[in-house]
């Protein structure tokens, strides 16, 4: 991950904290009823329509095999040039600056698109590389 301070939106999903580049976090919205999608893995909770667009709801804790917390009521919309993802959030912490070179959290799977651990005032978080994670999900994992 590139060096240099960057503003990230930090949010909680289950017991973990995650961060997305602030310029990619477009909205935080209340979660409406979801429509399930055939062939979806357990991390893909469903979809909903928002401003004429279908948004996939992804639970990061389920995606990387962490303990799940079902109390989320909101989603963080993350927009990259190729599309948008909605990440479940039990809590939105705020914007923090992540500094330094953060190593990948894994070599394979979704963890290859997460970096850290990064220190923020609320604790340690995983910084998501949204472009890479979207490409990974598009491969049907």
């Amino acid at each position, binding site marked *: 991950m590139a060096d240099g301070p960057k503003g990230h939106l930090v949010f909680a999903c289950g017991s973990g904290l995650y961060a997305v580049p602030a310029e990619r976090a477009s909205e935080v919205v209340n979660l409406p009823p979801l*429509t*399930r*999608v*055939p*062939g*979806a893995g357990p991390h*893909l909770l469903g*979809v*909903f*329509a928002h401003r*004429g*667009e*279908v*948004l*996939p709801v*992804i639970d990061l804790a389920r995606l990387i095999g962490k303990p799940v917390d079902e109390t989320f009521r909101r989603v963080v919309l993350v927009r990259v040039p*190729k*599309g*948008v*993802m909605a990440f479940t959030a039990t809590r939105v912490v705020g914007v923090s600056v992540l500094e330094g070179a953060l190593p990948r959290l894994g070599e394979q799977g979704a963890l290859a698109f997460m970096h850290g651990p990064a220190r923020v005032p609320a604790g340690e978080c995983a910084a998501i590389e949204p472009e890479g994670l*979207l490409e990974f*999900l*598009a*491969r*049907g*994992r």
Partner: protein
Amino acid sequence: MTAAVDGVVLCRVGGARFAAPCDEVDAIADAEGELVDPSVAFGEVLAPVGRALQAAGQLLRVDSVDVVASPGLSVLPTPLALAGLVGGALLGFVELSGQLWPLVSVRGLLEWLSTEAAP
């Protein structure tokens, strides 16, 4: 340009639902004979009694069907994160009475199910 579909067959599989383009469905039949069970795609269990969609020479078992014959139904595009699901059989979504329905190619779903069921 917005994509459109001329009529859909709304199908339920347990608590899940999908829409199939009418032009892919040759007939709606009783659930008799050799049936393809789609429950693995939906994580649901089929009801004991149901219907079947005939397409590509096969019968796809579902719980219930409703035909919406309206031409030119708008199709919302599939988000990239979902592009690889069910072998690419997800064609988009249609919104009917405030509900989103995954628009699924029956032929594509049958093909995906045949590979999923393969040893």
